[in-house]
């Protein structure tokens, strides 16, 4: 425990002192009436806690998410009451779905006005209750240390998530004796269960006698820092492993046992082999419906081992034959002790055969197209080649997201940041901004659609003001592409409100003094990508791609994973 300190300060100063104590270096925010005292303190402590002024509160919360996911630290955003609070709702819900640790400090009206429909009062506790891991209203300054200590502890421990602190202006102004102790336990909260060795042994027995074992891994591996253990485990057992969208980059893309991505637009082998394996080992993933397709026909033949930190995920979607509750890293460490060295070359080869089929029917056309129009796939491939697998890819939502997840390559963990559970358009640009501030020495590339870009493009202002060196690649198909794809496939090409009349993106970037270039021809693409990557500072590259390309393979909504289709 850290030694206690004591001094008389006001609540606003106390909040900043806590941020420093918690090791927070960067916060994202936007001022307003109910956080004026807090902003006064932010100015005072700015040399220790760097505040980034965004252009819309949604930008602040997504930036905090991007920052957190790139670094593993708790992301912090600070916004005012009422509209400031409601503007971060989307990001809070997104962080809840994707288990991202956030502490959102939100201003609130003075305590005597609570519940009176005061100016810029919103019921923040009520509004955020279903989309936070925890929230708390602070009306008096002396509540600040304990509430904030709990907030950071709850946000980062166990299965992480967003925490909201609704801080009345009254508490920000009040003076009190400040004394801080970090929180490391709460009586009613068990963040991680202790491992049960009997369960580990049971799982090891299943794995040791399996003929076609198959491992699926998700965000939990990244959250618990279990990347090395995962690799050791698959190498010892020879088990093929597939990642979920949020598990991307937890393993080297080119590792011989990494067979690719699960899910609706995942790879062919990983999907169909789910229904052929005899033991399915799920690590730190929650069987999202985009992964399982129809659950009734999902891996009925397999014994399921589920390694998971959140007890509520066990048997929620897929019944586990062996449930291992606990931290993924520790569970894998223990499991490695009990599994026998093995090889499953023939079985792994089946995935390779599937890949060949997928390559021939889908991948080749996507990333080495022979048609005139540019494809999203070739852009992503070229960017990946240029950065040699050493960059953070951030995406928005839609076709460009799926193409980026399919064709970007990773050598390092925490290198893929995307809105998975909530699928929030507008996530890409601000999240990339946050990621770059968290990892200033890494390349950060945002792949965004022409639609999603326009949901948060005001953050070009933030990027420009702070010269945040993100590279934004707009894959412009002039459509809300993913929705158009569904309209084409399932609504007889009735393109209801999916065509966009777009602004001149280059002029927009220029208006913000950001270097930009537009590419319409293949011969210009590689050069433009090089120019972007080599450029110091922010850069926007617009690539005009084929308007009506579709993302394949595809597991049609509600269909079984074995019904994945490779072509229309």
């Amino acid at each position: 425990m850290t030694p206690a300190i004591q001094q008389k300060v006001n609540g606003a100063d106390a909040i900043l002192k806590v941020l420093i104590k918690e090791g927070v270096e960067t916060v994202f925010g936007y001022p307003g009436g109910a956080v004026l005292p807090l902003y006064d303190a932010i100015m005072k402590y700015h040399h220790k806690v760097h505040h980034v002024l965004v252009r819309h509160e949604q930008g602040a919360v997504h930036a905090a998410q991007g920052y957190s996911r790139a670094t593993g630290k708790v992301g912090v955003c600070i916004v005012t009451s009422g509209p400031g609070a409601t503007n971060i709702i989307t990001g809070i819900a997104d962080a809840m779905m994707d288990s991202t640790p956030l502490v959102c400090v939100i201003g609130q009206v003075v305590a005597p006005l609570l519940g009176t429909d005061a100016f810029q009062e919103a019921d923040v506790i009520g509004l955020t209750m279903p989309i936070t891991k925890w929230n708390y209203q602070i009306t008096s300054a002396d509540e600040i240390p304990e509430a904030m200590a709990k907030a950071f502890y709850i946000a980062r421990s166990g299965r992480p998530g967003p925490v909201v602190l609704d801080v009345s202006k009254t508490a920000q102004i009040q003076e009190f004796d400040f004394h801080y102790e970090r929180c490391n336990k709460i009586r009613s909260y068990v963040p991680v269960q202790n491992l049960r060795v009997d369960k580990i042994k049971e799982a090891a027995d299943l794995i040791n006698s399996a003929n076609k074992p198959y491992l699926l891994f998700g965000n939990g591996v990244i959250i618990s820092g279990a990347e090395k253990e995962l690799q050791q485990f698959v190498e010892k057992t020879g088990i093929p492993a597939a990642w979920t969208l949020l598990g991307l980059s937890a393993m080297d893309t080119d590792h011989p046992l990494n067979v690719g991505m699960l899910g609706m637009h995942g790879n062919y082998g990983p999907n169909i082999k789910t229904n052929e394996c005899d033991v399915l080992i799920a690590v730190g993933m929650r069987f999202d419906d985009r992964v399982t397709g129809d659950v009734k026909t999902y891996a009925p033949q397999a014994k399921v081992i589920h390694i998971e930190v959140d007890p509520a995920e066990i048997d929620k979607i897929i019944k586990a034959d062996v449930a291992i509750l606990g931290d993924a890293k520790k569970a894998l460490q223990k499991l490695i002790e009990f599994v026998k060295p093995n090889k499953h070359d023939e079985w792994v080869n089946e995935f390779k055969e599937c890949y060949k089929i997928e390559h021939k029917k889908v991948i080749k056309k996507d990333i080495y197209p022979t048609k005139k129009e540019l494809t999203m796939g070739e852009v992503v491939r070229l960017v990946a080649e240029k950065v040699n697998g050493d960059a953070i890819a951030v995406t928005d939502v839609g076709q460009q997201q799926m193409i980026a997840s399919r064709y970007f390559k990773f050598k390092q963990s925490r290198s893929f940041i995307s809105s998975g559970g909530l699928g929030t358009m507008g996530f890409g640009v601000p999240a990339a901004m946050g990621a770059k501030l968290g990892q200033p020495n890494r390349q950060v590339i945002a792949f965004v659609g022409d639609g999603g870009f326009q949901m948060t493009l005001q953050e070009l202002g933030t990027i420009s003001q702070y010269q945040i060196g993100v590279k934004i690649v707009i894959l412009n198909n002039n459509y809300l592409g993913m929705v158009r794809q569904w309209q084409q496939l399932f609504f007889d090409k009735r393109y209801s409100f999916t065509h966009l009349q777009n602004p001149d993106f280059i002029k927009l970037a220029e208006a913000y003094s950001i270097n930009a270039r537009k590419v319409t021809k293949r011969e210009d693409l590689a050069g433009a990508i090089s120019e972007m990557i080599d450029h110091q500072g922010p850069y926007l590259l617009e690539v005009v791609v084929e308007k009506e390309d579709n993302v394949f393979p595809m597991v049609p909504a509600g269909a079984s994973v074995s019904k994945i289709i490779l072509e229309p």
Partner: protein
Amino acid sequence: MNQEFIISAFTENHIGLLNRITIIFTRRKINIESLTVSESALAGISKFTIVVNDTQDKVSKVVKQIDKLVEVLKAYYHTNEEMIYQEIALYKVPTEALTSSNQIESLVRQYNARILEVTSDYTVIEKTGKKEETQELFERLNQFGVLQFNRSGRVAITRSPIERLSAFLKDRDKLLASIE
């Protein structure tokens, strides 16, 4: 198959927790048949008793979600058979109906109810029991005109094992200490 379940949750006594728990049901469109919240045997710890009618699968998942809440110490569910439970009902009838014949008095005796208060205008009768019993008495009394009727949520305790809350808390402390 739908069936009645009694969900019990021991929680910290914190503002907003009732809301936090009920939205877990609302979100899944599960109706709460009855709800009782009060301080448990240990000061500062509340006990929620929630009755729902649903499948065991759904109820077990809902209980896990309740258990997951930061301020919930422990949540579990039981079938009616596994618990001893009661509800309390209050009935207000015109005193005139009581005095004009001995029928109400004999109902009170027959149903093991009792009279709480008699004024010249009204009489308040109390009965504890299962919902069917308090309902049956309501229907019988209503022949004479029940002026007001109010039934509580369920209170319930398990048949076994005995609820050892303080032992549970000791175990919890040990568990928390064992987690790094």
